[in-house]
């Protein structure tokens, strides 16, 4: 496992994978979009159902990214692996953007469906809180200059957040039933919608993977440059 986690190995491996992942991502996104616009209008939601194909994948990726950060943080804290720090840090801005996309597309869907861009539904609320968790995590990374220290602090925060996230979700659900939320997201999905959705979801995940790799690679190269500069000055 750790064999692939050394920076040189990672550069090689990701260098080989990156073109393919990117290619498949583009293919999946394009075909998913085409499929998406060819579905029949939903009997309840009309054509707005097409929003689902950009909304749900964004939401899924956004949530998985936080889980990835938490896992990377464990690696960072327990095994002190610098690549884990880099990976966690690189995932955060991506996760935040996907969260924002989920929120925006969701509220654009909500307007025709519920008549309001925003309602305090349980799922929406906990999703909004996820965005805040991302922002806090990113802010902490940026605020502490010393890299090792920032990495450790951010890892602790990510884990505290990850432990707390289910509790937050639970509490928000509880709150919502207390106050009788005004809607419930639709449960079952008709098979016609399933294929475009799955394709798009795949596309989003591959896009995330590709961007994640690029960002980790960037950080590795930047680190190399920094240490070169330091050595140059010492001479």
């Amino acid at each position, binding site marked *: 496992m750790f064999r692939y986690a050394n920076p040189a190995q990672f550069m090689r491996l990701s260098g080989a994978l990156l073109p393919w992942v990117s290619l498949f991502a583009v293919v999946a996104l394009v075909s998913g979009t085409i499929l998406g616009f060819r579905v029949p209008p939903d009997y309840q939601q009309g054509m707005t159902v*097409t929003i689902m194909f*950009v909304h749900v994948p964004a939401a899924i990726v956004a949530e998985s990214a936080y889980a990835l950060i938490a896992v990377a943080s464990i690696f960072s804290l327990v095994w002190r692996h610098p690549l884990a720090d880099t990976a966690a840090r690189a995932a955060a801005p991506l996760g935040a953007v996907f969260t924002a996309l989920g929120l925006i597309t969701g509220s*654009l*869907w909500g307007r025709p469906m519920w008549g309001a861009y925003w309602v305090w539904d349980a799922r929406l609320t906990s999703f909004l809180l996820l965005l805040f968790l991302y922002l806090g995590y990113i802010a902490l990374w940026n605020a502490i200059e010393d890299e090792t220290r920032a990495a450790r602090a951010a890892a602790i925060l990510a884990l505290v957040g990850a432990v707390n996230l289910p509790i937050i979700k639970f509490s928000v659900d509880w709150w919502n039933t207390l106050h009788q939320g005004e809607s419930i997201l639709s449960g079952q999905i008709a098979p016609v919608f399933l294929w475009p959705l799955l394709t798009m979801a795949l596309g989003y995940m591959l896009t995330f993977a590709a961007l994640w790799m*690029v*960002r980790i690679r960037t950080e590795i*190269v930047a680190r190399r440059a920094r240490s070169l500069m330091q050595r140059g000055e010492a001479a």
Partner: protein
Amino acid sequence: MTSFFAMGGYGAFIWPAYGVSLLGLAAMVWQSWAAWRAAQKRLAALEEDKQ
């Protein structure tokens, strides 16, 4: 064609949703790629300096 863009009257919501998604993805791609290029250039310059 216009009916396609109207999306059964929901075009005003569907197109922005796709637009924003495209924009978001594109922005991430652009930013990540630009940072990668910049880092690479910096490293190359430093390595050249050393020689």
